[in-house]
């Protein structure tokens, strides 16, 4: 939170199957609820009521019942949610009701009954425009199989310039050229990490990775970053790492990847 307003997290992406959606978005939803934001969840054929949504998060580390009781949490009819006018009106109304911020959760799956793929891409632009305002943050859930399709991951990631998440890893762009890595990297999310590094290293001289919240990264993580930034570094770009934990430094040293990146000294 900043000055009583939930932190602006912009337009972000999470890779998860429909079955894993609740687990994947719990932290996002919790931050919104705890920060007093209005949380708008796009409904679908299978999700039409707040009670159903609360059931999906049963056992998760977030209290949705209280939020729902006070009107802070809504499941929105997809026909209303997935239109430029509809979404903008939802945001305007929430702010007019006194909420300091608005955050939403949506997906191509939930939009399928209302929008096709091409029109969902157009709707993403609506979200992007809305998220330029510091009061609005939006999270889009995509199926993780997209991370393995040629070219598509980078296109999908490009459309969510604020950050990406998958299987316990959250990559956040808080300012151009500086990424914060939260969580753990392994086989479950290395492909996304590589795609994200590839997307973000364009048009930069220095890419800074803040690793203070990176709790685990195997050899595959450093290989993914090295592979994704190989051309970037060949052309003179630098990948600078901050806040590395001791084990991460050790893995970088034994693999030789410490010679490929700039590792800032421990403070």
């Amino acid at each position, binding site marked *: 939170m900043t000055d009583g307003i939930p932190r602006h997290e912009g337009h972000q992406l999470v890779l998860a199957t429909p079955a894993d959606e609740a687990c994947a978005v719990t932290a996002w939803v919790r931050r919104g609820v705890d920060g007093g934001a209005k949380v708008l969840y796009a409904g679908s054929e299978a999700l039409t009521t707040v009670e159903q949504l609360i059931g999906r998060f049963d056992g998760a580390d977030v209290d949705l019942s209280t939020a729902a009781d006070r009107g802070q949490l809504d499941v929105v009819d997809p026909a209303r949610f997935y239109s430029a006018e509809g979404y903008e009106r939802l945001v305007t109304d929430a702010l007019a009701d006194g909420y300091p911020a608005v955050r939403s959760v949506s997906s191509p799956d939930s939009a399928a009954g209302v929008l096709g793929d091409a029109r969902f891409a157009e709707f993403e632009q609506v979200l992007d425009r809305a998220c330029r305002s510091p009061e609005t943050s939006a999270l889009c859930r995509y199926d993780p199989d997209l991370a393995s399709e040629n070219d598509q991951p980078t296109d999908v990631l490009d459309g969510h310039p604020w950050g990406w998440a998958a299987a*316990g890893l959250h990559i956040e762009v808080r300012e151009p050229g500086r990424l914060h890595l939260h969580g*753990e990297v*392994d*086989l*479950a999310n290395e492909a996304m990490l590589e795609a994200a590094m590839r997307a973000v290293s364009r048009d930069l001289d220095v890419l800074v990775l803040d690793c203070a919240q990176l709790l*685990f990264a*195997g*050899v*595959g993580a450093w*290989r993914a970053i*090295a*592979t994704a930034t*190989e051309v970037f570094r060949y052309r003179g770009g630098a990948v600078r790492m901050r806040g590395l*934990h*001791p*084990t991460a430094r*050790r*893995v970088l040293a*034994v*693999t*030789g*990847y410490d010679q*490929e990146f700039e590792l800032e000294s421990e403070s």
Partner: protein
Amino acid sequence: MNGATDAETDVADRRCEHDALLFDSDESLVTATAPFIADGIAAGDVVIVHGPAYEVDMLRQAFDDDPRVSFEAGTDRYRRMMTTVADYQRLCTAQVPAGRRVRSTGPVPLGDDRRTRLEWTRYEALVERALGALPFFGLCRYDTRTTSPEVLQRRLGAHRRIVTADGSVGNDGYLDPIDLLAELAPAVAPNPLETLPPVVGQPDCRAAAPLRHAVADALHRTGVPAESAGEFVAAVHEVFTNAHQHAAPPISASLHSDGRRWLCVITDSGPGLADPWTGFDAPPPIGRGGLGLWAARQLCDQLDIARARNGTKVSLWLDPD
């Protein structure tokens, strides 16, 4: 080598040398070691003399504490087998552009128990293979007064020449590293630690994160230092990932402890390693695979791979002391 400098070509032509030195007195130690050190100084080599303080100080005195020699008393240069190998590889590689060789003399640990004795005998077998193309000359010192004949005979098999105060002779008992390693292959039979009830047991392990977390929690609960625990968890992760990517399920994992040492056993139903040297050789070029096992070997105290009838068994050891 296209594009190589004269210095680089000269050094590359010299193969790794790996001799054993036998001594049974202070005088014979100095007499036998002196030519090795003197030749290294004259050639401009990186000369390292390591070992117990008493021995290192004797040799330091014999050479008037020559600044061109690195006298390392009581270092942890030989704490973990694969770390020792990797460190020498890095040191030697760094000397290639300058045309310098690394020359190191000192004792190889005898080991406190059968397992660690075997591990350091494997080290001796690995030196020529792991450092073969690098500018390395190792002279391994053995005090015949304190080394058992059985251990000595096994260790000598890894050395092409035997040096004493009387000079150097070829070793008729030299064995090809492949054959020597085969003799030292890990047993498939369970280690006694495996008979203890597992602290962590995952008979059908399908993802790395739950295994990592379970092992990390177990180590943390019992007060294993964070640095040691973190590296061990990383090693377990790499072995599991290797099995997940290249072997066949089910992959089972178990963690055992006798209150002092830790043993993680990971088994799979795959065909095993096609190349017995996987994870022992210097890392492949950046960006290609093969680094996981290489890293795992350096992140734990010992890693054994045994080929069972129905799959592969990897044992990872942590000795926090």
